[in-house]
């Protein structure tokens, strides 16, 4: 086994550095080689998305739901995909596992590299094997996302039996273990219960258990708390956070609520009209956002120190029609700081202060007019 020199990370040994009497045929050698592979891995990203475009071909025209989106996710980190309804965040997540309903949807271009694997080049059988095993999904509405005619224990154990080859008993045990972990009391007794016998929050916990059944490397959580009561929301988010920390699972958290993203994520991508309009570490986004849409989002969060009885602030207007996006900045019709240039040309993502902080706005560029 050869190790190429491009392995990064300070202090990771290469084969060339292995002691002479250690070969990979020995136990020691094998462990060392594993360690090398591991270290090498951490030099690359868990997920690299480049120029992803997903479109829907409808009677009214071609909807550019996801338009040239690129981002990365590190192993174990939590990334937020934030934006209002219809901005393309859910479609992005579905595209990652090629679950976009096709027809009428189609991933028309782009690269998705997951754990070094080129997703777009996989056969549908290979893709299927990845789903559930390496990538778990939590959907928004636990009421409709669980099969009403199957016991929850079965629905959890299914993945384990399929992907991990567990026997029925072993898979059931694992399901009980997971149920307990997600906080369902009397887990073993409730294995045979049906979804309608649980409350909304409990059902979402079951969904989390299903998603984590095979210990995936990446968890896609699509608005996991939107359908739940506010009091339960916090519990579910805490659960996701603690479990992902415990198992080292990376999470892409999709939400329209910046407040939620703030509490959970390491980094945030703000999406608008199918594009990423700002990205950066969570602190940077909150402390020095550089895109008028982000300001609007932050502004719309109600604050404790506000005058009681004052109106909630909104971003006026509606998101644009994604069928024929023009060449201008997509936010320009709603932007208070709009200039002529914004109406004819779309800005690229350019750097701002802060590690990995990019924003798509002419006005906030160093030479721009917004200070």
């Amino acid at each position, binding site marked *: 086994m050869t190790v190429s020199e491009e392995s990064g990370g300070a202090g990771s040994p290469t084969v060339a550095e292995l002691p002479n009497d250690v070969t990979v045929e020995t136990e020691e050698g094998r462990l060392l080689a594993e360690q090398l592979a591991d270290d090498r891995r951490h030099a690359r990203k868990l997920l690299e998305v480049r120029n992803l475009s997903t479109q829907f071909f409808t009677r009214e025209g071609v909807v550019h739901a996801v338009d040239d989106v690129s981002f990365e996710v590190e192993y174990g980190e939590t990334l937020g995909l934030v934006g209002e309804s219809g901005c393309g965040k859910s479609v992005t997540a579905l595209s990652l*596992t090629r*679950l976009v309903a096709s027809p009428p949807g189609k991933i028309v271009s782009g690269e998705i590299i997951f754990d070094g694997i080129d997703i777009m080049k996989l056969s549908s059988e290979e893709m*299927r*094997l*990845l*789903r*559930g*095993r390496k990538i*778990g*999904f939590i*959907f928004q*509405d636990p009421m*409709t*996302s*669980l*099969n*009403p*005619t*199957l016991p929850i224990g079965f629905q959890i154990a*299914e*993945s384990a039996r*399929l*992907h991990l080859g567990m026997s029925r008993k072993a898979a059931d045990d694992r399901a009980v273990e997971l149920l307990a972990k997600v906080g369902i009391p009397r887990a073993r007794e409730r294995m045979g219960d*049906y979804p*309608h016998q649980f409350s909304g929050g409990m059902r979402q916990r079951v*969904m989390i258990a*299903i998603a984590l059944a095979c210990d995936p490397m990446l968890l896609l959580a699509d608005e996991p708390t939107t359908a739940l009561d506010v009091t339960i929301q916090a519990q579910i988010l805490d659960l996701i956070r603690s479990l992902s920390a415990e198992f080292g699972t990376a999470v892409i958290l999709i939400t329209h609520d910046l407040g939620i993203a703030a509490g959970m994520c390491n980094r945030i991508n703000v999406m608008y009209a199918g594009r990423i309009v700002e990205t950066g570490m969570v602190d940077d986004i909150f402390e020095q956002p550089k895109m008028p849409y982000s300001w609007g989002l932050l502004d719309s969060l109600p604050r404790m120190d506000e005058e009681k009885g004052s109106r909630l602030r909104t971003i006026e207007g509606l998101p644009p029609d994604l069928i024929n996006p023009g060449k201008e900045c997509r936010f320009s019709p709603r932007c208070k700081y709009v200039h002529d240039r914004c109406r004819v040309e779309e800005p690229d993502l350019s750097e701002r202060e802060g590690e990995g902080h990019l924003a798509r706005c002419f006005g906030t560029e160093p030479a721009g007019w917004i200070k």
Partner: protein
Amino acid sequence: MFGYIVRRVIWIVPVLFAVSLITFTLMHAAPGGPWAREKQLSARTVELLDQKFGLDDPVPVQYLRWVGSLLIGDLGPSYKYLDRSVNDIVGDGIGTTVHLGVMAFLLSVLVGIPLGVIGALRHNKIPDYVATFISVIGIATPSFVAAILLLVFFSVVLRWFPTHGWDGWANPGAMVLPTLALALFPIAQIARFTRASMLEVTHKDYVRTAQSKGLKERTIVTIHMIRNALIPVVTILGPVLAFLITGSFIIETIFSVPGIGRFYVISIGARDYGVIMAMTVLYATVIAVLNLVVDVLYAYIDPRIRYS
């Protein structure tokens, strides 16, 4: 659940009373009386016959007497076949009718459901068109038309099957056409319904969840989709069974199947009130029981429903 079943069973009783009352009233309201024949019987003969069968008693008395005998299982005399009781006639034919009905039912379900499932899964492709085509034919063709066409085409022209001579398993060839003719419409209805239901299920969120788990398509269809899709289909099984019962009248007539359906039709024409009344109540009982079975089945397969 048990309480529900008991309540339903108890409820059947007053319903049957109502049915018997209505039937009885109708029969007695009809002009002509049970003794009308091609040859007019003499008034004296009619009087004697009336006395013999208690038809000269006041109507309410007759009714009570009749209900009383029903309750002990005596279906009464036939007014046309004076030497046979309804029990005899029914006893002779009921096995055959049930046999035909069960076979037609099995055929409808075993053909209709797969047709609907395949049509939905291969939506707008060739198998869907075939399934839809069969459904369309089934709906467009009244059972008597289907029976006649099948009879002439397969029996008279092709001579593959006999035109009559039902004898159960002793003559399997004779069972084919009647069963097919009777099952055609139910197959169509079940297929259509199943297809619509499957198509709806395809769009459900839990199917997407199943896909996100990386399950094989076959698993998703058989374990996740079908059982949800079949739940609404169970609700039309009641009407299907009712159809099989009334359909048996025509089919038995056309194919000369010696069942009670055929006798019923003949009795109606001949104004054999004894047979008509008794068999109407019999049919109503059967249908009520079958409906109950279907309802229980429905609760059984849908875990969300538990009758208190």
